[in-house]
């Protein structure tokens, strides 16, 4: 259905028809969870349980993962929308054209879009919003993606022209993270003025955040009247809330042990979606012994990732053997490149000049699942004569020691974003993988003319880093949404922590 929606999206009238015909808003319904298709309560309040409370309500001021979850697509909309299955649809941009040089993007804005404050959307708001992300004091995680913007112009109220210094095929995709905000809006850390299907009700810090259906929304109205995010710090408390019907759905289940009480209970549905969070054993590729690809390959082959995943997540989660999750267009299964094989691992160690193994320190963040995984790695590597010293550090120490000072031999870290294989093209990144060929492919991929070209190049990148065992990609996390059986239409994948609520239906 998403493809169909995309092709129809050019004309606003046609879009509205298509959405009505599909019985839901474009992006969620095809991936939407829950079986119910029958009658639903149009004025329901959906109670959502989450572990990620926003720090504040502005994603350029450090609002964090929580504000992305609550606001992306719900309160704020971008020119484009990243759908729950990883595609990019037009949203506030009705259409766009790329100049023949591939450097000039001309966006035509959708008609009849109003902010929650009542002001009509104009190109000035779009210019303001993009500039807010790239401003010097911006804390946006996406800031560096827009480094190539040369100028932003607004020839008229409906048109925005952006000129880039170098070609960037991800530009449109990246714009899906830029909230379009009223350029007159004030105190955005505690309030909002977006164009989305919901406006902010109240945010009670440490507890709840409610969103109310916005009557003046330009598109299809949400299938519920209100959503309330309930924030928890304790996974058990969150599961208790679901068990006692205090919440209807948990955006991302992080406690594998709790799944048993929902599985096989007809009142709940456990949905196994695709996440983009990868657990990495990241080597410091600059320093011996991990500067040798053969050593990294040996370590990778000596660890039974399947056993690790099973022991932490049971039947959930996926092995990918590389940095690219299945929702990225350039995914391919590379689990065979460095298979689990102790004989191979020992041979590789011998060939690399370490027939008797070696010892290294593994800087391990102190929160789950890292310490468990580190202990497992230690026992696995002991079998090939490699001694692991586990050094437990806080998240804060990780940033200082590993990320900034690169003072480490190997570390563990979760990498949450999609399409982040491109970091292997940056020799200055913390893991220090430096392959000029890969750097060049990543650069070329970004400057490609077509998505096919980009995909082909990034596949090459992915194959190369797997062949070099740039890191050991232990596994891809599961993305588990647990919901009451009375609910349907909720997003399953929650890509990049988004959680579109406008298609959620509660049976009457």
């Amino acid at each position, binding site marked *: 259905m998403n493809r169909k929606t995309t092709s129809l999206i050019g004309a606003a009238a046609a879009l509205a028809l298509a959405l009505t015909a599909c019985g839901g808003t474009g992006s969620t319904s095809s991936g939407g969870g829950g079986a119910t298709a029958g009658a639903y309560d149009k004025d329901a309040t959906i109670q959502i349980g989450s572990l990620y409370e926003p*720090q*504040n309500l502005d994603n350029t*001021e*450090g609002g964090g993962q929580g504000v992305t979850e609550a606001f992306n697509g719900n309160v704020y909309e971008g020119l484009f929308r990243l759908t729950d299955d990883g595609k990019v649809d037009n949203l506030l941009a009705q259409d766009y054209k790329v100049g023949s040089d591939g450097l000039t993007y001309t966006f035509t804005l959708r008609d009849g879009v109003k902010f929650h404050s009542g002001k009509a959307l104009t190109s000035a708001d779009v210019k303001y919003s993009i500039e807010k992300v790239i401003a*010097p*004091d911006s*804390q946006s*995680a996406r*800031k*560096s993606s827009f480094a190539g913007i040369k100028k932003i112009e607004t020839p008229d109220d409906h048109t925005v022209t952006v000129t880039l210094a170098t070609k960037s095929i991800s530009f449109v995709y990246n714009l899906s993270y830029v909230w379009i905000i009223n350029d007159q809006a004030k105190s955005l*850390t*505690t309030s909002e003025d977006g164009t989305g299907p919901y406006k902010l009700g*109240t945010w*009670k*810090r*440490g*507890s*709840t955040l*409610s969103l109310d259906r916005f009557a003046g929304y330009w598109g299809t109205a949400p299938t519920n009247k209100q959503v*309330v995010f*309930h924030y*928890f*710090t*304790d996974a*058990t*408390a*969150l599961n*208790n*809330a679901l*068990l*006692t019907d*205090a919440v209807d759905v948990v955006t991302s289940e992080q406690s594998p042990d709790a799944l048993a009480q929902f599985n096989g209970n007809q009142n709940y549905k456990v949905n196994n979606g695709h996440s983009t969070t990868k657990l990495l054993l990241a080597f410091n590729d600059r320093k011996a012994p991990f500067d040798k690809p053969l050593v990294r390959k040996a370590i990778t082959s000596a660890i039974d990732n399947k056993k690790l995943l099973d022991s932490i997540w049971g039947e959930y989660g996926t092995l990918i053997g590389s940095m690219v999750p299945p929702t990225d267009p350039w995914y391919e299964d590379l689990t065979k490149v460095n298979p689990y094989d102790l004989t191979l691992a020992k041979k590789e160690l011998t060939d690399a000049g370490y027939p008797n193994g070696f010892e290294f320190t593994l800087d391990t963040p102190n929160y789950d699942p890292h310490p468990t995984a580190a202990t497992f790695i230690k026992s696995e590597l002991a079998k090939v004569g490699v001694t692991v010293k586990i050094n437990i550090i*806080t*998240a*804060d*120490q990780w*940033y*200082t020691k590993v*990320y*900034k000072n690169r003072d480490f031999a190997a570390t563990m*870290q979760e*990498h949450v*974003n999609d399409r*982040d294989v491109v*970091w292997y093209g940056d020799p200055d990144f913390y893991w220090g993988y430096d392959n000029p060929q890969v750097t060049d492919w990543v650069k070329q991929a970004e400057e490609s003319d077509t998505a096919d070209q980009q995909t082909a190049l990034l596949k090459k990148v992915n194959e190369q880093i797997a062949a070099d065992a740039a890191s050991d990609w232990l596994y891809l996390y599961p993305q588990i949404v647990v919901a009451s059986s009375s609910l349907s239409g909720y997003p399953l994948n929650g890509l990049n922590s988004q959680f579109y609520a406008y298609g959620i239906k509660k049976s009457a």
Partner: protein
Amino acid sequence: MTAYLLRRTAFLVVSLLLAAAVLFLLLRLLPGDPANSLLSVGATPDQIEAARHQIGTDRPLPEQFVSWLGQLATFDLGESFVSTLPVGPEIATRLVVTVPLTLLSFVLAVVVAVPVGFVAAHKANTWYGSILSGVSQLGIAVPVFWVGMLLITVFSLSLRVLPAGGFPQDDWADPAKALTSLTLPVITVALVMSASLIRYVRSATLDVLGSDYLRTSRALGSSFARAMWRHGLRNAVVPVISILGIELASTFLGAVVVESVFALPGLGGMLVKGLAQHDYPVIQGILFVSTLVVLVIGFVADLVQRLIDPRLRHSLARDAR
């Protein structure tokens, strides 16, 4: 009494200032960079520097301390590094949960502990006196979170009569709803708190029961109840009140655990998050307010003791001369 009040108030202010200085310094001694919590993987060195400059941790320590004191003098607790939102108002919204939780638990604990402790002492030689005493001993050993989880399992998950956690979005707009949310947490804290209170009440009562003045009063013809009421209670209550002050303060500070178990938006949750993120203004603000509360509780407990016990008042009068 006025001189005493003045002296006691001056002591309060000096203690607060000292506490502020200690707080500030101890936090800075902790390893870690607050700028880290503002960033995600992918942040550039420029962004890191900008973050540090923005929150002011690149300024010299004395300068940071003086500016904090200046803020305190104007009742401003500053702004969180992480959220950039003012700390004071957030603490105020959290107190709406933590203060009622503390006070209700305290009242319930006293209501339970005083009669039980009295009976445990008065009937110390009977089987139920021993049982009461034994149960209270057990209560001291049980951790708060375990009691909380037990109550949730029984009353929320099995019987489904009370919520497992959370607090109404509109706070106390509907007092019945707010009280319902607080029922299990209050019982949890009160149970654990009353266990130790029972021990104190019991031992204070035992002292009084064995005292000469009570025996004399009885010999002069007073009934047991009258003798206890006129002489025993006043004497027994003095040590108990100083313990109550300490218990109240520790309940307030110990709310962290019970708030996390019951997902209550109280001060404890805010403190834990602030600590994890090295959010100095948040930690300083909460600890400063907590210190203030604890000092004031101690102050009030002192005053109450003096009002009840003439011996303290007289020693005070002598001091004043």
